[in-house]
Every structure is written in structure tokens, then in C-alpha cells.
């Protein structure tokens, strides 16, 4: 099992030059490039001299020879796309993003060029409202089985009975701690913030993402992760401004810092927590006992997708439990699909990072669409960052 994209997919000199030229032309974003250099892969057209053998299922429709997907860093098994290319002849270009807003901004601006992308639960209603995503044609997704999905995680993909998005995986937002550096056991957001100002001084990272950074500051006082109440947000702001001078960084790209040992503690998503712990066992993943965020990432197809047939074909391919199971093993996020869980090894299902105990899951909240688009929270974040 590859440890990261880089291990699974070494970048060759000519691909590197390719990327460089794209960057110079401006057809690749900063985040894409961050993904490429820092997180292993971003926009790699995964071409291999494997024979092109379209399977009968795909042969019916002309899929073209390339398509583009927008997703998150370290989120797929690179082999998946290579296998897809071998089966269908379609090369998949992977664009890596740092936030849902960035994806939304790009889709809103038009001409993103993506035929499939990976939005998080709370954005889907906004995409639907803005008319950016397609109602999925389920006839083209025979591998998807709604009955095997856990409805707790999938509900937000369906709006007024129409399916706009199908789940990729779910996860939580907790924090990762290097237990060799910070030896005191921790189990709450209160301890996270207090430690950041004490033993973790200069070594703690928070997301460059208002939803989670403000949400987890609200948890310090036991308020809702999604709170839009003025007085509660004011308390969270007070805490954030107090913590700011003690931070190592405000960044969602926290794996390099944690791996290099510069950062000792960071806000962290499940899959990153699992990857960090797998490679560096002393890095633990903690869910705040006050609660915090639980999320589902979905697959959706933009209305202006340049290659819809390939988008559907790849989505259907990813919905095949045998393919999906490899994805989960690679990226470390838990599955919403009972068929996939049945195929996962026992040690994965028993991994408390991926499948936390029920009492820890219970207080978690799904992020709300209003939380993401609230201008007040955006301005609070700007004040925090410029403090």
C-alpha cells in the first residue's frame, strides 16, 4: 500500500517540466501546484503503456481519451486512475484543492473543465441552488446501491428526492498530536486550545478554513460548531485572537509540518490523521469530547462538464466496491457503503481513527450550508488572520 501519492506515483522529469510549463501559462492554480510538490501529486495525467482494453460496459459510449477531476490532497489511490485508464482509455487529470470555497469559486466562474468533483456535504445545496451541478442519471451508475449506503452520511446528496451527489467517504475533524513532544494525554478541544498557548506554544497549527477553525473554537465553550450567534462568535473570536501569537501556522497543508516535526499538534481531518499515524505511530488522532465536525465527501458532476460520459464512467467505476475498498485503504477515510465495509480488513474496521466509538461520534455535527457562506464568519476569520 503506498504511503502517499509520491510513493505510488513518482513524477518523471518530463511530467515535471509539463507541470512547470502549465504553471507558467497559468493554467494550473497555486493549490494544484502545492499538491504537486508538497503533497505528492496534483495534476498528473496518468498515462502508462498499458494496453487499452475497453470493457463492454464502457464500449457503448464514446468516452474520449481524457477527463479532469477536482478533489482533495492525498485522497485517492493513484492506481485507481491508472486502472481506469487501462480499462477505458481515458486518462484522468487530477486537480487538488484546499477548500470547498475554492472549488465553488472556480465552478461559479465557469470553464473549470472538470467532469467530476468531490464536494463536501454542506456545499451541495448551494451548488444546486446556483444550478451548477447536474441531477445524476442513476441509470448510468449501476454500481451505486442506495440501499447499502448509511443514510446518516448520504442524506445531503439528495435534494427533494433527486440525487445530485453520491458519497465517497465520511470522516471527522479532530486534531493530531505528536505524543512524543506533547506527552500529556488530551481528549477535548478545551485541552487543544489551552495546550496551544502552553506546552504547544509555537508548534500548533489550525486550519486556514473558517468553518473548522471557528467551529472548533466555539467548542471550547461548548457552543454549536455551526453557531451564527453574535455573542457566541464574539467569545470564539476572543479565544482565537488570544491563541494567534502562539500558533506555528494557519494552514490546511499540515502534513509536511507534522511530518518534519516542526509542528507538534494540528487540527486534522480523519484521512490525514490516519495517514500520519500510519507513517509516524507517535502521532495520535484525537476527537474532542465536546463534539466538532462530522462530514461526508460526495461525488458530483458539474453541469458544464466537458466530458460527461467519462465523468459518469469514472463515477460508476469508483462506486464498484472492489475499487472503492482500495481507495479507502489508500486515503484512510471510512466508507459509507456496507458493501465496502464488508471487504475492508478487520484492522481497518477496528481502527478507532477511522471508526470512532459511538459515544465520540454522537456529539459531532454536520457543517451547515449557512455556516460556510456566512459573511460574518468570513470577516471574523479575516480579523483572526490579520491579528
Amino acid at each position, binding site marked *: 500500500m503506498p504511503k502517499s501519492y509520491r510513493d505510488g506515483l513518482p513524477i518523471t522529469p518530463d511530467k515535471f517540466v509539463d507541470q512547470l510549463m502549465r504553471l507558467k501559462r497559468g493554467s494550473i492554480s497555486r493549490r494544484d501546484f502545492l499538491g504537486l510538490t*508538497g503533497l505528492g501529486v496534483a495534476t498528473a495525467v496518468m498515462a502508462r503503456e498499458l494496453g487499452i482494453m475497453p470493457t463492454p460496459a464502457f464500449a457503448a459510449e464514446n468516452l474520449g481519451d481524457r477527463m479532469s477531476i477536482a478533489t482533495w490532497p492525498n485522497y485517492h489511490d493513484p492506481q485507481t486512475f491508472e486502472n481506469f485508464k487501462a480499462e477505458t482509455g481515458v486518462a484522468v487529470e487530477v486537480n487538488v484543492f484546499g477548500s470547498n470555497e475554492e472549488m465553488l469559486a472556480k465552478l461559479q466562474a465557469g470553464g473549470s473543465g472538470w467532469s467530476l468533483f468531490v464536494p463536501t456535504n454542506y456545499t451541495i445545496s448551494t451548488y444546486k441552488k446556483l444550478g451548477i451541478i447536474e441531477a445524476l442519471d442513476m441509470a448510468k451508475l449501476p454500481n451505486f446501491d442506495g440501499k447499502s449506503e448509511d443514510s446518516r452520511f448520504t442524506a445531503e446528496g439528495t435534494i427533494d428526492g433527486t440525487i445530485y451527489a453520491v458519497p465517497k467517504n465520511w470522516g471527522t475533524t479532530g486534531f493530531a498530536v505528536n505524543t512524543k513532544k506533547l506527552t500529556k494525554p488530551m481528549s477535548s478541544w478545551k485541552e487543544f486550545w489551552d495546550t496551544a498557548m502552553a506546552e504547544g506554544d509555537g508548534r500548533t497549527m489550525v486550519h*486556514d478554513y473558517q468553518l473548522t477553525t471557528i467551529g472548533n473554537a466555539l467548542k471550547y465553550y461548548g457552543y454549536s460548531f455551526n453557531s451564527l450567534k453574535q455573542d457566541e462568535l464574539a467569545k470564539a473570536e476572543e479565544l482565537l485572537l488570544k491563541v494567534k501569537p502562539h*500558533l506555528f501556522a494557519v494552514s490546511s497543508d499540515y502534513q509536511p509540518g507534522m511530518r518534519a*516535526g516542526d509542528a507538534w499538534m494540528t487540527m486534522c481531518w480523519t484521512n490525514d490523521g490516519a495517514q500520519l499515524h500510519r507513517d509516524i505511530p507517535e502521532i495520535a488522532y484525537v476527537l474532542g469530547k465536546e463534539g466538532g465536525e462530522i462530514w461526508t465527501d460526495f461525488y458530483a458532476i458539474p453541469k458544464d462538464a466537458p466530458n460527461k460520459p467519462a465523468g459518469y464512467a469514472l463515477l460508476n467505476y469508483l462506486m464498484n466496491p472492489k475499487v472503492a475498498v482500495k481507495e479507502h485503504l489508500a486515503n484512510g477515510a471510512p466508507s459509507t457503503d456496507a458493501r465496502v465495509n464488508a471487504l475492508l480488513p478487520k484492522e481497518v474496521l477496528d481502527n478507532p481513527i477511522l471508526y470512532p466509538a459511538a459515544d465520540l461520534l454522537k456529539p459531532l455535527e454536520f457543517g451547515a450550508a449557512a455556516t460556510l457562506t456566512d459573511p460574518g464568519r468570513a470577516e471574523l476569520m*479575516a*480579523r483572526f*488572520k490579520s*491579528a
Partner: protein
Amino acid sequence: MRGSLFRKNLVTTLLLAPAALWLVIFLVLPFIAIAIFSVGERAPEGGYQAALTFAQYANLPARATAFWNTMVLAPIGALACLLVAYPVAYYLALRAPERWRLILLAMIVIPFWTSLLMRTYAWMYILGGRGIPALLAYVGIQDLRLINTPGAVLLGIVYGYLPLMILPIYVSLERLDRRLLEASADLGATPLSTFLGVTLRLSLPGVMTGFSLVMILLLGEYLIPTLLGGGKVFFIGNALVDLFLQSRNWPFGSAIAITLVLVSVVVLIVANRISTRLSGARRVDLI
């Protein structure tokens, strides 16, 4: 007579047309779009909604810290760049052996062919825990943190913009009439006063060009503070990125962008004035 003048004008017009078209499409039109956005409103889901209001401009104080940080960073960064660049340019133009000059110049320019992003990202690993601090740990200096410090940001800025400072200074020093230096020495000036009175003064146009070039680029800088400063220091460039890509408040972002352009123009004018005053009337020609 008239015919040939007309033809000359036509040729001039045709030759300038591509550049003019380029400027209109990629500079004037986007600028107009941004200006229109800046008097609009943020749509409920983010983005732009048509309106005619100056509320976005009235809201500018909300990014006062970002403007302030930028106004401090830009001159300090440009100054640090200048202090490093001047001796290099001086050596290249006046001291380096002729046959080495081209090679040395190439060595300065070639890294510039690589994107600033990539070079900055490389520094992230050099300064990160597995880079220089790991080497220092061998000699007993433990847990030293270099990355995400103001020093790292300054280093990144100097490194990233150095060629832009060296080249104009080099050009102005290279054109320097050596006989002036000899004359200065013959008249009894010490090397230091020759440098201050002749070399430095005559190279001031180059210094001002380099300074304003670096300064203006720094006004929009966001990458280096993000990567080497850990995103803890918020510059106006960072505010713009967040407003367009995160909170998607395009009208407010546009108002800030327009303000930034105006500030840059003022900086350019001031730099130009200073430069002319310091050196404008001092074109010295021997014979």
C-alpha cells in the same frame, strides 16, 4: 511627401496595434470589470450581484491591518533586497573579469526561469525541520525553528526578487563612464568618496527602478508569507486571495484591488520623482 508621412503613420499604427490590443483585452477590460464589481454587492451565496454602492469602499478599514502590514513589508523587503543586490551588481559591472561576466549574469537570471512558487516551496523544505535544523541538531542545537518566522519571510522575499534588483543596478553601473572614476581619483577623492559621490549617484536611476519594481511586486505578494510565514501574517495579497477564493466577496475584493492599484501608481510616481530629482540633471558627458 504627404503620402510617405501617411504611410509612416500607418506602419507605426500597425506595429503598435498588437500591443495595444493586448493591453485593451488583458489590462483595460479586466480593470473595467473589477471597477464595476467594486460598486456591486456580494450575492447571498457569494460572488457578485449588480448594484451601485460605495459600501465596499467604506468597508476598507476592515482590512486596515492587511494594508498596514503590506506597507511595512514592501519597503523593508525592497530595502533588504537592495542591500544584498548592490554589491553583487557592483562586482558584476565593475570588478568581474570580462569573460566571467556573462556566465555570472546567467547564473543570476537562470533561477528566475523557474516559477517563484517552486523556488519558495523549496525553501519550505530547506528551512523546515528536516532541513537546516536537522543539520544543526548534529552539532547540538536542538529544536530550532526557522520556518514560519518573519526572518524566513524576509529571506524568501530577498531570494525571490533579487534578480529584479540586480539587473537594473547592473545596467546603470555598466554604463558608467570609467573615466569619471579616474577623474575623481586624480582630483584627490578617496575611494569611498568617489563611490558615494560618483558611482552611487550615477547608479541611482537603476536603484530606483529596481526598488520600485520590487516594491510594486511586493505590494501584491501573498505566496511567500503563506508558505514561509505560515499564513500568520496577513498581507493585502492574502486578503485578496481570501476574498475571491474563500469568502467569495468579489465586490469587496474588487474594491481592495482597485485601491491597491491606486496605491501602486502613487508609489511609482513618487519613486519616479525622487529618481529624477536625484539624478535627472546630472547627465555628464566628457567631450
